[in-house]
């Protein structure tokens, strides 16, 4: 393994953290969704790191599944976003707080 496993995991953690901060901080729904994609990628990286370390192809299979699911999720999510935009003319997350007290 070219680099120690810890470094791979560390990178994954950093990317995950960045993705979380983006999802929690930004107001633009599109950017929020992109941050979620980043989080998914971070997870993929971790999976592949372990797969390489322990010579287990299961990790890679799993990553394929994650990518597939991410694709599906993005499709549907953006569909919802478009509907939302058509109704409210805004993709600001603060404008969709209908469950507010």
């Amino acid at each position: 393994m070219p680099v120690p496993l810890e470094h791979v995991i560390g990178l994954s953690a950093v990317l995950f953290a960045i993705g979380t901060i983006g999802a929690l901080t930004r107001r633009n729904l599109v950017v929020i969704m992109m941050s979620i994609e980043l989080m998914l990628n971070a997870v993929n990286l971790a999976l592949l790191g372990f797969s390489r370390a322990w010579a287990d192809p299961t990790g890679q299979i799993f990553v394929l599944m994650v990518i597939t699911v991410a694709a599906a999720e993005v499709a549907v999510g953006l569909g919802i976003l478009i509907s939302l935009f058509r109704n409210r003319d805004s993709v600001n997350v603060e404008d969709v707080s209908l469950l507010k007290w």
Partner: protein
Amino acid sequence: MSAAAVLFYVFAAMTVVAALGMVLNVRNTVASAMSLVVAMIALAGIYVILEAHLVAVIQILVYAGAIVVLFLFVVMLLNLRSDAFAVPRSRLVKLLGMVVTGWILWVFVRLLPGSLPAVKALPEGFGGFRDVGRELFTSFVLPFEVTSFLLLAAIVGAVVLAKRRID
């Protein structure tokens, strides 16, 4: 340090910078999307270093090539320019957030070494399409088929959601 290691760190740096660029870029949504592409591609490079060749290719084809493109389509369709929605947050809160995040990461990094099992040797052809393909169609054939259904449902859902009018 081997060439692979150097490459790893280079790509890692690229990924982090691109990710930060995506998250911190407030004014231009398209620029955010482009940063995401860069991050994806850098990650694909890392995947190759980690001997996950098929996955790396799929990453570029699907993730960078389709998913982010989809994001760009939507941004352009909705004509979203800037994220004029930034909420001014006090410096103190930003500082505090950074400190906390740094601390969590540092604790994590400190704890991790020594807690992982040993690295094993790799068999020949690991990560190539033959190996992955065999696994995919034997041990994991069920999840494989189920994801096809998932994609079908997603397609139908997306079409219905994005239609102009439901008749």
